[in-house]
């Protein structure tokens, strides 16, 4: 059941109200039953729009690249939704989200919607939240979605995995690029970009990457390596071409279908997980403390405690 306030918001959303869209994004970012209800209602509208993940080490020019990508797509009259994810401070929980700086004047383009998200120290919930935000943007009526994340870590890779095409961006000089390669980011890459390709070390980096790719076992898709100079808008056409070729490949090879099935399975499982956990905690919350006492006194172990609690819960339902 959707709260009446949200019914109004959803209705405004359906009519293209951007404030409503932003509010629904906040709702799903924060999660909860109302968020789920909204996502449930929006679900039928999804699945038609390519999602491009752009990731890579800090400082390689991702935001500038995203900016040029957006402009390129806008020239073809495509509406672009962007989610830009930046890390929250582990100390304060706060964050400075600065990706908009690079996309400044696009703010007033009605065909572009940019949303900045903080990782919020999440333990895996981030990939889901990012996907949910992308879902809202897709349902709002964008033709292409870009999800930008920074880093070389597992979280970024999870987010990237939610995209149809993952673009990994490196730049010639940063040693971080090498780290990226070692951290497994290369494995998730569907397209590799060497930005700041006007730097002297660019040629060498491209050759290194291509050589690495050659060493891999043969696969239906080999990531192309594209050179860009994002600050000058150079190489962007080649990049969008590589991305759309990948998307075509996904469709033709049936991989897109496979991934969708996979994702549906994972999503059902994740939502189920959440629901079950919430339910269990609700039902058993007041029994945790006494059991903990018993464990500390040596009269039970956490394992026997959990077994007993589960048995009690299942008994309730039978």
């Amino acid at each position: 059941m959707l709260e009446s306030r949200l019914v109004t918001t959803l209705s405004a959303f359906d009519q293209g109200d951007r404030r409503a869209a932003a509010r629904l994004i906040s709702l799903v970012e924060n999660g909860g039953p109302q968020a789920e209800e909204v996502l449930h209602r929006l679900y039928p509208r999804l699945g038609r729009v390519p999602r491009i993940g752009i990731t890579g080490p800090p400082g390689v020019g991702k935001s500038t690249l995203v900016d040029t990508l957006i402009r390129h797509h806008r020239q073809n009259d495509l509406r672009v939704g962007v989610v830009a994810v930046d890390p929250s401070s582990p100390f304060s929980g706060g964050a400075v989200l600065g990706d908009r700086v690079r996309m400044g004047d696009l703010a007033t383009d009605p065909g572009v919607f940019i949303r900045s998200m903080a990782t919020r120290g999440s333990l895996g919930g981030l990939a889901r939240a990012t996907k949910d935000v992308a879902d809202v943007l897709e349902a709002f009526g964008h033709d292409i979605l870009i999800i930008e994340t920074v880093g070389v870590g597992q979280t970024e890779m999870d987010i990237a995995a939610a995209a149809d095409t993952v673009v990994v961006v490196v730049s010639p000089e940063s040693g971080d690029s090498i780290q990226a390669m070692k951290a497994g980011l290369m494995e998730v890459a569907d397209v590799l970009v060497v930005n700041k390709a006007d730097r002297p070390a660019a040629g060498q980096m491209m050759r290194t990457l291509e050589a690495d790719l050659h060493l891999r076992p043969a696969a239906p898709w080999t990531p192309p390596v594209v050179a860009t100079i994002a600050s000058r808008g150079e190489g962007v056409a080649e990049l969008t071409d590589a991305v759309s070729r990948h998307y075509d490949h996904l469709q033709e090879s049936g991989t897109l279908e496979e991934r969708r099935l996979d994702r549906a399975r994972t999503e059902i499982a994740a939502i189920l997980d959440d629901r079950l956990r919430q339910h269990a905690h609700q039902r058993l919350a007041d029994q945790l403390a006494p059991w903990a006492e018993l464990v500390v006194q040596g009269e039970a172990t956490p394992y026997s405690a959990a077994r007993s609690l589960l048995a009690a819960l299942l008994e309730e339902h039978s």
Partner: protein
Amino acid sequence: MSDAKSLTASLYTRPDDNDKHVTVSGREISPLVTPDDVADLDYQQDLGNPGEYPYTRGVHASMYRGKVWTMRQFAGFGTAEQTNERYRFLMGRGQTGLSVAFDLPTLMGRDSDDEWSLGEVGKCGVAISSLQDMETLFDGIPLADISTSMTINSPAAIIWAMYIAAAERQGADIAKLRGTLQNDILKEFIAQKEFIFPPEPSMKLVTDTIEFGTREMPQFNTISISGYHIREAGSTAVQELAFTLADGFAYVDHAIAAGLDVDEFAPRLSFFFNSHLDLFEEIAKFRAARRIWARHMKDRYKAKNPRSWLLRFHTQTAGCSLTAQQPHLNIVRTAYEALAGVLGGTQSLHTNSMDEALALPSEESVEIALRTQQILAHEIGVASTTDPLAGSYFVEKLTSEMEAGAEEYFTRINEAGGVVPALEEGFFQREIADAAHWYQMALERKQRVVVGVNEYVNPDEKQAMPLLHIDKDVARKQNEKLAALRERRSTETHGAALTRIEQTARDGGNLMPAFVEAVKADATLGEIIETLKTVYGEYVEPIII
């Protein structure tokens, strides 16, 4: 003597949060310095007499006895007419040099009637969109007879072209014109953010002006390599020193790469520093600056002309030290800061007015600021001897430490590939943001006291000082002038002039003659900048918080 606590030479000292014995830059202050601490100091090598290499003690033998520093109050607001009045007022009160403050639209290369100029025309400085405005600005002021400093950066070459054309129309011999063009684009990328084009074409514009000045206007300082703004952005004194000089070296490198001989242009490079609250840190900074520059110019760049080794500078007292609370106290702060500038051997000086935390100076407050300098020159005795603090154990030690600190930064900048790569990567910006953050936190935990603000507060204080108000009609008047200008000018000459600029920019030739022609054809500042944007593009900076 072993009781003396020695200063750490580390630049990145993060003193104990309760230690109040730190400068405004966060540097620990020694309680006592003794002869042992400066045992290695050599008078000939490290100090020299004033007017002698390495110029630690001053650039001229006679310094202020020969000629008192120029009293040059940075001024400008509203229309050219209104600022012209303020210039005459200041000259009447005894100022000895002119200094032009332009409004934000002008600083950003936009005409007063540009959509971005809404609400900004004449607010921070004078609105100058055309040669006509420039002529009005100096109406009745013979440019041949007074040195004029212009604080303008991205559009500097064009504003200079207007100044040159205005002076010509006054009948001046341009080869004899004296003054300074700030024209320091590197510090814009680093600190003040008034950039327009990317670094490469921006540097090219600077080199064009240096080249033109070297050939046509040998008495004009074509650049004022600035630390003031870097300091105002929150840097430490050592950072101000190091980043300014690094910028200076970058300009030298660029000019040499453009084919100029170092001894041709170096004598006309000038500098501009902040004079902040910590008296001795500032004095040491100024002395170290002269010594560092002299050493690098002679030993590294192999300049032969002794005038190439001289670091001449203008000083402005620290704007960021001014308070809105108990504003009369700013007179006191400014006086101390001015003293530091003079004891540090500055060539010219601007003193801030007490109301500047909230507004541009009123007539009353700028008069007091000017009189502050006059008292310093005539009543305090500091103008009758040169570099009186030389030989002080404390000051000499501090001077050497500032130099060492700067050299450490030079190494790091070189490792980053030089000034331009470092600023594109955000190196300077990060250092400055960290220093600014430290300072604010130091204030909030009361490690730093600011009288009237976090201590000795008057709780019922009300803002009572009458503040300068910018006439509401400035924008309208400018719009009318611009409309009339566009009406009366010749479309052909105007169009041809802009075409010439575009062509020259594409070909890489020196743009100064084309700028002068264009301003005489009544091209506006905005039109010229827009033309350049089509060739050079616009710059977006890296995000550093």
